[in-house]
């Protein structure tokens, strides 16, 4: 996708990017007790990056994000898995969640904290990573770029993989199994 050439769009997108992200984090943090949560927050955050992409082009948006979104998603799954596994180490069941309350925090008053938030952050990261990656790849492809940049290709594909339409060509396995 080519960068839009509207100054207004770019300025508004830059401003909205921060507003949307603050809102997304707000949704994430209050999720346990008020409407919100990791999934909604993640979608909001992903949309903010898509907004940037529409205004500045895919490559700029990827630069701003700095890491491959799939890595963000993997980090999210790992975080969720880790937070569910941790209780196992002190003989509590898998996925046990703990909740507590901090009283008299300056500016905020009573704050409820708990491990569900860690799990929710994992979900948040997965949603951000997955949504942005898919849209970025599609957008690149629409813009006539390769779906993945050259550096990424080696991460996602083996040397044997061929385009799917290449008939019945089977992967090279060298039937000669006896040495």
């Amino acid at each position, binding site marked *: 996708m080519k960068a839009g050439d509207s100054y207004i769009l770019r300025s508004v997108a830059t401003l909205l990017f921060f507003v949307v992200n603050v809102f997304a984090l707000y949704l994430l943090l209050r999720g346990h007790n008020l409407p919100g949560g990791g999934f*909604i927050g993640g979608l909001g955050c992903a949309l903010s990056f898509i907004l940037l992409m529409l205004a500045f082009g895919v490559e700029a948006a990827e630069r701003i994000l700095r890491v491959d979104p799939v890595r963000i998603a993997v980090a999210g799954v790992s975080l*969720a898995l880790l937070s569910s596994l941790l209780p196992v180490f002190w003989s509590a*069941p*898998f996925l046990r969640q703990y909740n507590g309350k901090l009283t008299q925090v300056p500016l905020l008053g009573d704050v409820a904290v708990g491990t569900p938030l860690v799990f929710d952050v994992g979900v948040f990261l997965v949603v951000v990573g997955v949504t942005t990656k898919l849209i970025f*790849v599609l957008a690149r492809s*629409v*813009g*006539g770029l*390769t779906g993945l940049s050259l550096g990424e290709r080696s991460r996602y594909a083996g040397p044997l993989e061929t385009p799917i339409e290449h008939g019945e060509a089977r992967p090279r396995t060298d039937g000669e199994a006896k*040495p």
Partner: protein
Amino acid sequence: MLLLLAILIPFLFVPLLWIAGTKLGARVGWLAVCAPVASTALLVLTLLNAAPGERVVWEWDWIPSLGLNLVFLVDGLSLFFGLVVSGMGVLVVIYSAGYLDDHYAFHGRFYAYLALFMGAMLGTVFAGNLLLMFVFWELTGIASFLLIGFLHTDAESRSGARMALLVTGSTGLAMLAGIVILGLAAGTHDLKALLEQPMNADGREKLNLAFVLMAVGAFGKSAQFPFHFWLPNAMRAPTPVSAYLHSATMVKLGVFLVARIFPIFSEAGLWSPLLMAVSFGTMLLGALLALLSHDLKAVLAYSTVSQLGFLIGFYGMSPSSGAQSDLLHIINHVFYKGCLFMVVGIIDHSAGTRDLRHLGGLGARLPMLAVITAIAAAAMAGLPGTTGFISKEYMLKAKFDYWGDGDFAAWYPLVMVTLASVLKVAFSLRIVWGVFGGRARPEVLADLHRPGWNLLFAPALLAAACVVFGLFPGLLGQGLTHFWTPLLHAQVQPELYLWHGITREFLLSLAIVVAGTGLYAVLAGARVNALRIPRVLAFDRLFESGVEAFPLLAKRITAALRSDRPFDAPAIVLCTFLLVVGGFLASIGPASLLPTQVNWEEIDPLRAFCVGLIAIAVVLVVVLPRWTGQLIALSIVGFLVTFYYVLFRAPDLAMTQILVEAATLLLVLLLLARFPRAAEIGEANDTRVRSWRGALGILVAAGMGIVMTLVTVAALNPRSAAPAGDYYLKSTVPLAHGTNAVNTILVDFRGFDTLLEVTVLLIATLGAVGLLMRYRRSASEYAAGPMGPAGSGIELEDPTESKPDEKGPNESR
């Protein structure tokens, strides 16, 4: 505690070695030695603390609700295998440090995999719960996959690794099924309980089925017929891996499993017939294939298959009162086969080839190696003075005893073992003579270099063990008494002697050696080099073509179902849905679903207004001519549904809906931009398409409308079961300490579902990215870069390469 440390240390070394490897390069091997040394020391301490014949259980809670805890069972059998694993680990890592020189890359990764494997092996042999054992069992398969495929740039390496993973993994699943059935029959998966409590009559009926399934797992792991073909193909791994995994330890897991479940199943009717028929058959087949192979590693691999057949079959013919001197046969095989594999690695390293047809005459250049090889080969052939001889004497004695009082095919073991032993003598001679005797080829001598002491150390030690314990078998026998295991082993173990006098075993043994030498003398020279493995026995090719048939089948099905017109895809999906759900509704009678009376006064005017707006927007989707307009109408539907959620006071749903709506709208816009301009006009002008497709469309749409209405109405009817939602609403504060029930359901009550869902999301993304990346475009297209504004379409330069589904729009332009 010592035991837990012994198992944990290799796992702790995995990340350490991986990271250290990037800094230290080949020298990381010397750091890696610490892990097996520490484990061995801890296991020896455990052994010294344990009384013989005792069964100690260590237990830590893991998933108590599933009856799955970290249970470790320490008895003679597990300690024996544990010490074999860690002791061989020490030797193999020392050997690897010499073998993996700077010609190789990724040393850290290699030793990390080795440590992972060692930890998994120790976990398997010490597991005190069958489910836990299965987890570690499969982990050894994964580590083996990584190690076989370590030289991943080599295509045969990759296919060998894949074959090993598929065979051991799928047979492992059969084993899991067997474990589950056994667990259902006995009511527990705990090994100690299973071993010591007699099974009730109800459970006995299922024993045979459970046993067959578990035996499949053992056969797969130990490369028994018909799974024997993966082991020779696994020889693509670096030689230390072959010596460690594929001769000394991992392939012995099948033997271990059979020994482990011996007390449970030895009374089962199928125990002897199945184990003996398969294993002794494999023994002969393996020995035959070993004689027909020319690659030194393939010879050793097939001879391993053969020997494993013997070890498993041995338990098959043991009386249920207990096995005798089984550990002797196992340790003997560990000694000589580990040694021979390491020797082959050295030959490969020094001479640059391991093809028996090209080797020869190395005896004068590598005298030390020749002596080591001769000793190990003598042990393999069972010549006096080595552990092989002792093992063979007791093995033949057992066979003669079985002939005397066995109840199933009494002659079978003796005949098979004798034939296999003759072949074994022949190929043992061939290895020694083929490598070290005769005349050397100049091209082999050209780049011959001597092995260093660190390469020779481990095989020399193993060969020394063969001789020392072969000459003084009493020492070995005394050592093995520490590993006496109740229920598995017979009460009285025979004492080991070197000389039994002129017995029938000795005479048969003599005859075997003579016959084997004669066989080799007949075949020697050119004739043996011309031998080939007949195509009928090349199971690996059959397996490979079977594996490759899968993508072919998938492609066929895809080709049959796929359509070039987007219209057809939803038609197929929706028609299937209509058939299944509509058929179900028709079978229960749609009239019964309709409400008996409708209370018109309860209808909220605002909601009714919203629904009316949604209906108008839906009509617009159908009526509007262009997709841009249709899309806008569709998103209006989505946002109105959001509003409808708000009216029902469901803010979470509304927020999710509005964000999903925005994201999917962008996604669809991006996708449509990919289409050529002609598609924007749509199929409206194409009269051929309008007629019957339009009719079908109306039919499907009407059918879907009716079915979905019925489903909705049915959902509104009063239900007999209490809805689950009430429980969650009530307990969200007391149990999950959160006031947002939607969120507490997601992260707490149904947290496991969410965890799996996000994992699926990630997997789906990776799949989608892979598919998108494999979308074909020509090189010139890539080179051309961005192709003008979105929606302008893409024209392929080479018309012969154009995809069929792109032809339509391009022609109509």
